[in-house]
């Protein structure tokens, strides 16, 4: 069943959800699940872990709904909960992995390196693009990913990661510049080889 967004504000939805309105829960979850999942995936590096974090975040939000100040915007509060839960889960997982190593009871999977940016890979030499993305700082990569690849706005990404809009803008600008340099280098190399 698809839940239609009924246009109520976040605060109204939250209050209704806290009062047991299941439709309000559905609308609120639908409104934020995409951004929350993308953020959690960026923080956790694993979709299953990210899904767990997102579900827990919505549960925490609804459990604490009465404490939410309706005069303040909902997204910063919500995304700060997502970030905190992700950080807690990661440190728990790291501790567990360390223990597993110490006791030699299991093999700890290495975390995969960040995959390449698919749209750019289509235009760039794959190896060069992968290197270019790796050369970006984690936050540059994250902001580029959300703004350029996922079409989220600068404002949304700033709230999601808890940083200022100008910082997001700067990260995206630098990421674009770095990738453009790679693109141009590749282009000139191809021209040179053609001659």
């Amino acid at each position: 069943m698809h839940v239609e967004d009924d246009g109520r504000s976040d605060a109204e939805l939250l209050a209704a959800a806290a009062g047991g309105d299941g439709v309000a829960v559905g609308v609120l979850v639908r409104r934020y699940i995409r951004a929350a999942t993308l953020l959690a995936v960026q923080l956790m590096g694993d979709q299953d872990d990210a899904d767990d974090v997102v579900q827990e975040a919505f549960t925490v939000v609804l459990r604490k709904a009465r404490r939410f100040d309706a005069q303040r915007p909902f997204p910063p509060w919500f995304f700060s909960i997502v970030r905190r839960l992700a950080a807690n889960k990661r440190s728990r997982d790291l501790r567990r992995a360390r223990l597993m190593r110490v006791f030699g009871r299991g093999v700890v999977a290495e975390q995969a390196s960040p995959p390449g940016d698919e749209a750019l890979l289509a235009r760039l030499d794959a190896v060069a693009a992968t290197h270019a993305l790796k050369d970006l700082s984690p936050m540059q990569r994250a902001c580029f990913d959300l703004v350029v690849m996922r079409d989220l706005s600068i404002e949304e990404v700033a709230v999601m990661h808890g940083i200022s809009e100008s910082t997001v803008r700067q990260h995206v600008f630098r990421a674009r510049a770095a990738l453009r340099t790679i693109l141009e280098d590749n282009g000139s190399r191809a021209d040179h080889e053609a001659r």
Partner: protein
Amino acid sequence: MRDDVTNRFATSRIRDDAGHWDARAEQVAADVVRELNRGGFEWLGNSRRMWVAACLLMLVALLSVVSSGVIPVAQGVATELTNALAPVDDIGRAIVLPDRPPAIGALLLPGGT
């Protein structure tokens, strides 16, 4: 809040279409509502903070029982138990039963106290 997560992973492998998010939202909303409707004791089982609070409450209850005079009953039971488990010989009983240490004479001279 300081964010300790230093890696930022790309999301390129995540499915991103409206149908997918509708389905996910529906599933998450149902799970969240179920979670919120669960009984208090189940929630207690999943919450470390609630466990600590429950342990503290039990400790306070125990202390209040001890200080409210219920303890003599427990002491009576303990005395009966000590009597029942005490050795049968005089020296053993002299060591175990009295409140204060036994007299040297009681230990050296069987039958003497």
